């Protein structure tokens, strides 16, 4: 099971979601389904807090891209916060740092 804590803030029309643990080919499909449900429920912006995200593979990145596509349809944004440096590296390698708004975790 993907650990995912979420809260919708209506003042700013934003989902604050914290992604915890490891996202890999095994649990990425579940994450995708849950993110898409949240977006359907409230089509708003998304802030992903990745402070406790310890691993993400290409299938996990694919889920984030897929969520971004949906959010872009209504001109929303996805901001990724508190990425650990070695996970930020993966976003840079894949060029995804250019399509998401990213804030790196201070060390």
């Amino acid at each position, binding site marked *: 099971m993907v650990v995912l804590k979420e809260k919708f803030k209506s003042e700013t029309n934003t989902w604050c979601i914290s992604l915890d643990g490891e996202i890999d080919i095994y649990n990425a499909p579940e994450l995708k389904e849950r993110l898409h449900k949240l977006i359907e429920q409230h089509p708003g912006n998304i802030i992903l807090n990745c402070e406790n995200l310890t691993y993400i593979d*290409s299938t996990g990145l694919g889920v984030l891209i897929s969520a971004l596509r949906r959010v872009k349809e209504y001109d929303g944004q996805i901001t990724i916060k508190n990425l650990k440096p070695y996970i930020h590296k993966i976003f840079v390698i*894949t060029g995804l740092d250019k399509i998401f708004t990213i804030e790196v975790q201070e060390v």
Partner: protein
Amino acid sequence: MSNDIITLTVPAKPEYVMVARLTSAAFASRLGFDIDQIEDIKMSVAEAIILVLNQVVRPMELLIRFENLNEEIHIDISGQGEWVESNVSVQDIDQAQLSRYILGSMMDNVEFKTDNGIMRAVCMHKGCGGSN
């Protein structure tokens, strides 16, 4: 350290990619790779497996072979057993590009063994004093 070989076979299922990841990390750590390099190796093993799994056909089993050779870790990931049809999506095919970027950046060298457009195996290596 002498030229040691470790092999691991797992069912070609998403739930066992984690087992391959942890076995890689344990071997790399024994060979003296540092924490960042171990992360790179772990992730590369996972991405190579994802490339072999997310295709129009996929194998029933995966064989992962690790060898330490001249201060380098050599890793071969290959599909084994019967290859069966899989329900791959457009997304999986797009994602393969992400896997290739990651492998290219984290390992010193990566070779893909394809046959009729199907990726049968990925062979890669990384040195202790490696580029990343």
